[in-house]
């Protein structure tokens, strides 16, 4: 078990978005989080690296690092948590004033204080991996959405996280660019990266995920292997959701 989350609560003002979530993420597994918009699934993902600070709950990592959100986190705890995971955003959020290569090198060089030459070499390898070896010196605005998102993935991988978080990584893309990004994520899954992904790509979830988690109204409605959840759901709300997605009227 890489990470075990217990009793996660999160409210924005009076609005309770996460109502006591328990999740376990197996090392080397892919967890797909699906659910209607506004259900809190993105909030759940953003809580995993405290971009949203949970109101209460506990995290326990396999290496013994643990957090209790009932107490205020120290700066050190917060940074330790964030440096365990890499995040890929729906809107890429690349640094527009830096080239693709600089975007990827920023974390290892500035945050992890690694040797610049070595970082450059491993960054170039990452560009190879995401299929952008010829684009390293371009600025984000010179890249297509799919290319930008692949740089975003390389940037997250560069800090060598234990857990990769994907927040609807293909939702902002033109349909014809979705495939290239999903392919990169598929490769990462094959290489054994631990991945948590919020997605609307049900087919992708079915093929790549080890666990699918259906989320609605701040609760986990059901959870299990993709075939069970996507093909043979037990809960009425899951059925309705799948029905809406598969048969849009």
């Amino acid at each position: 078990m890489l990470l075990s989350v217990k009793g996660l609560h999160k409210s924005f003002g009076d609005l309770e978005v996460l109502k006591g979530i328990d999740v376990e993420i197996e090392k080397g597994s892919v967890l797909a989080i699906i659910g209607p918009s506004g259900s809190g699934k993105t909030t759940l993902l953003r809580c995993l690296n405290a971009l949203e600070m949970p109101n209460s709950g506990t995290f326990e990592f396999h290496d013994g690092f643990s957090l209790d959100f009932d107490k205020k986190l120290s700066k050190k705890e917060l940074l330790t948590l964030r440096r365990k995971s890499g995040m890929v955003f729906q809107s890429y959020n690349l640094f527009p004033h830096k080239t693709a290569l600089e975007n990827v090198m920023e974390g290892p060089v500035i945050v992890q204080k690694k040797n610049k030459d070595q970082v450059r070499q491993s960054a170039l390898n990452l560009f190879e991996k995401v299929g952008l070896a010829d684009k390293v010196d371009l600025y984000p605005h010179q890249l297509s959405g799919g290319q930008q998102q692949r740089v975003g993935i390389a940037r997250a991988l560069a800090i060598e996280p234990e857990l990769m978080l994907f927040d609807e990584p293909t939702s902002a893309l033109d349909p014809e660019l979705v495939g290239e990004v999903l392919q990169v994520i598929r490769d990462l899954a094959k290489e054994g990266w631990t991945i948590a992904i919020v997605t609307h790509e049900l087919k992708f979830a079915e093929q790549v995920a080890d666990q699918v988690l259906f989320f609605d109204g701040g609760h986990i409605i059901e959870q299990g292997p993709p075939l069970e959840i996507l093909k043979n759901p037990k809960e009425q709300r899951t059925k309705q959701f799948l029905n809406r997605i598969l048969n849009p009227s």
Partner: protein
Amino acid sequence: MAKMFLNNMIIATAGGVSDWDNILSSLWPMIQGGIQYTIPLTLFSFVFGLILALLTALARLSSSRILIGSARVYVSAIRGTPLLVQLFIIFFGLPNIGIVLDPFPSAIIAFSLNVGAYSSEIIRASILSIPKGQWEAGYAIGMTSRQALTRIILPQASRVSIPPLSNTFISLVKDTSLASLILVTELFRKAQEIAARTYNFLELYVTAAILYWIICFILSIIQDRIEKRLDRYIAK
């Protein structure tokens, strides 16, 4: 205006060689005043002012009530009172409570405080104009707030703030002429001194105006260069 100037020039020329010489020979003292006082006064005030402005902007954006409050009072007081009055308080007023400052440092203090207040609003607005996702992307690769601010946010905010800050800078060049009223022998003070002797008010003041114009013109060229340099990462 131009016609009057020409007429006066003719009169000056007609009046004899000495008037014309007066104007020519006044040029160098005025340029000297510019180099010795106007330009240093502008540069020092702008640099100190920008540091003050950044600190004030960060105070306004902090979560401390005391910092936010004091920054607001400072900005409001400076923006709500005339620069000339501030200058007079520092130079003529402070001696009454035993603080006696020379004209030049008095002017630097007054102008820095002024630039600090006006530019803090510019810097605050440009920091706020950078999307929240940029902070988050910095945090997500493990950055501290300070790293995200200096590596990610400020470089982008500085690009946004160059045009309005250049306006402040150019206004400052011209505002330094107010220092003549507290006896700083800068460009305009030199013009006043010579004019008082020779009575060539129009010629001298127009010459002063042209000198200010030249300085500001050069500055706007530099501004243009900087903007182009910083624009390289923006889609055209």
